[in-house]
C-alpha cells in the first residue's frame, strides 16, 4: 500500500494542557541558548568561525578547486600553447582564447603558438576543473583563491596578465620543450 495512515499520538492530560510539553520546549530552547552563549563568550569550544576575521585557508585540502590560473615554467615561458582544448571543454563557456604565433627569432620558436589573449569570465566559471584536467601542457591550474570579487563585470573578466599574476611560476612539471631537437 502506498498510503500510510499515521496515527495521531494519544496525549496525556498534562501534554494536552501544554504543561509538560511547555517545560520540555523551554528545556530545549534554554539548553541551546546556554550552549551557544558559552561558545560566543569563549567558555566552550566553537564549532563555527566568524568568516572575515577567521579563515579556514590553512585547512583547505590539496584538491581544493578555486580560481583557474595560467602558470609559467622555470624559464618564465608561458606553458600554454593555445591548443584551445580548455576553451572547448569548458562547460559554461567561460574561457576565450585568441591564439597567436611565436615569431621565428624567439628562442622558443619551436613551440610555434602561444595565446595572444586568454580571458576567463569569472562570472561564468563554475570551478569544475575540467580545463586543468584536459590541458596537455599542464598550463592551467585551479588555485586556492576563492574570494573572487569585483565592483563591475569588467573586473571579473580575468585577462592574460591577471591569470599569470594569480598563477605565477610552477616548477617541477614535465618540460618537453626543453629538449633539443
Amino acid at each position, binding site marked *: 500500500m502506498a498510503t500510510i495512515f499515521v496515527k495521531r499520538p494519544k496525549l496525556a492530560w498534562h501534554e494536552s494542557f501544554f504543561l509538560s510539553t511547555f517545560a520540555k520546549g523551554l528545556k530545549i*530552547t534554554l539548553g541551546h*541558548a546556554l550552549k*551557544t552563549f558559552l561558545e*560566543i563568550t569563549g567558555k566552550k569550544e566553537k564549532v563555527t568561525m566568524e568568516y572575515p576575521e577567521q579563515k579556514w585557508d590553512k585547512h583547505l585540502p590539496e584538491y581544493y578547486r578555486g580560481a583557474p590560473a595560467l602558470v609559467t615554467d622555470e624559464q618564465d615561458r608561458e606553458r600554454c600553447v593555445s591548443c584551445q582544448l580548455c576553451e572547448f571543454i569548458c562547460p559554461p563557456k567561460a574561457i576565450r582564447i585568441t591564439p597567436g604565433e611565436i615569431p621565428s627569432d624567439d628562442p622558443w620558436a619551436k613551440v610555434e603558438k602561444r595565446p595572444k589573449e586568454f580571458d576567463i569570465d569569472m562570472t561564468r566559471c563554475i570551478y569544475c576543473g575540467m580545463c586543468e584536467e584536459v590541458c596537455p601542457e599542464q598550463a592551467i591550474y585551479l588555485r586556492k583563491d576563492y574570494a573572487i570579487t569585483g565592483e563591475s563585470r569588467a573586473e571579473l573578466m580575468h585577462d592574460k596578465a591577471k591569470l599569470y599574476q594569480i598563477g605565477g611560476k610552477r616548477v617541477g612539471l614535465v618540460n618537453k620543450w626543453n629538449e633539443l631537437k
Partner: protein
Amino acid sequence: MGHLLANIDLTFLIASVVKIVFLTFLVILPMVAYSVYAERRFSAVIQDRVGPNRTGIPLTLFGFKKDIQILGIGGLTQPMADGIKFLLKEDFTPKSVNAFYYWLAPCLTMVPALMTCVVLPFGSELRLSDLNGLLSWLGLPGFSTVPVPSVIADLSVGPLYTFAIASLGVYGIVIAGWASNSKYPFLGGVRASAQMISYELSLGLSIIPVLMVFGELNLAKMSIYQDANGWLLLPLWGEGLSWARWALWIPMGLSFCIFVVAMFAETNRLPFDMAECETELVAGYHTEYSSMKFALFFLGEYAAMIIGSGLAVTLFLGGWSIPFGPLIGLGYAAGDTPLWLGLLHIGVFLVKIVAFILFFILIRWTLPRFRFDQLMKLGWMVMFELALFNVLLTALLMWLIPLK
C-alpha cells in the same frame, strides 16, 4: 487669570514633566530599542547562531586600531544603527491607500502604548531633600522635605485606566489593515481585532481576584502592600505568612497564568501573533508600511510589551519591592525612605521588567503559532471560563479564611 495661575502647583507640574520625560524618553524608548536587540540576539543563541555582533563605535574611521565592542560581545550599538536606518529609508505611501487613515494608524499604535505607562509605579518615592546638603554647599535652594512619588499619575483606577487605553491600541492595527487597501493587511487587521477583543475579556477577568485581595485599584498602594506583606506570588514575609494568603496562592497563580497568556495575545506576541504571521500574511497589518511608520508599529508593539510586563510585575511580583525587603532593612517606609533606596527600588523594578521581557522572547522562540480557530477556542472556551471560576474560587477562599 492670575488667580488661576496662582492655583497651579508649580512643583507638582515640574516634577510630573521631569517624570514623564524620564520614563518615556529615558526608560521606555531605549528599552524598546534594546529589547529589539535582545530579541535578535536571544533568538540567535536559541537557534545556535551568533546574531548581530558587528556594530560598535567605529573608531577605525578616526584612525584608531580597533572598533570598540562594549562588554566584548559586540553589537550593542545595533539599536542606534537600526534607528538611523529607519529614519533614512524612503517613506513610501502607496497610491491605493486611504492616506489619512494610513498616516493615522502608526500613531494610534504608538500613543496608547506610551500613555498607559503613566499609572505604573516605577519606584517607591524619592526624598529629594537628601540632596539638600549638597545643594546648600553649591549655594542653591534646597528641595522641600515632602518626597516625590515615583509614579506619574497616582490614579485610583490604575488597572482600569491601563486596560481602557491599551484597548485603543487595536484601532491602530485595524485601521492600518483597512487603510492599506491590500488583502494581507486586511486579513491581519480583521484577525487582530477578533483576537484582541476575545482576550481582553480574560485579561480583565483575570485580575478581578487580585483586586479582591488588595481591595483597591491604586497600583502604587498595591506595590506598597506587597512590599510590606509579601508579593502575591511570594508571600514569605509580613502578613504573607498567614493561612489566608497561602490559601490564596493557588487562585493567584492561576490568575497570573491567565493574565500572562492574555497579555501575550493582547500584544500580538508569538504563540498568538495571528495579526502578522509571516508564513500566511506576509507581514500582516504593516505589510504596506515602510521607514519610520513601520518603526512606529514596531515601537508600539514592544512598548505595549514593556507596559504589560510592568503591569504583571506590579500586580503579581511586587512591583518595585525588593524580595524580603522589610526583613533585610530595604523596605519602604512612607516619608522615611532614603534617596538611595528610592533609586534602588527603581532599579529593581527595571530589572524585573527586563527579566519578564526575556521570558517573552524565550516563549516566542519556544512555542509554535496557534491556528486561528484554536486561538479562539482557547480564548472563549478555556481562558474565559477559567477566569470566571477563578473569581468564584477566590471569593470562596476569602470567605472561608478571611484576610487579617
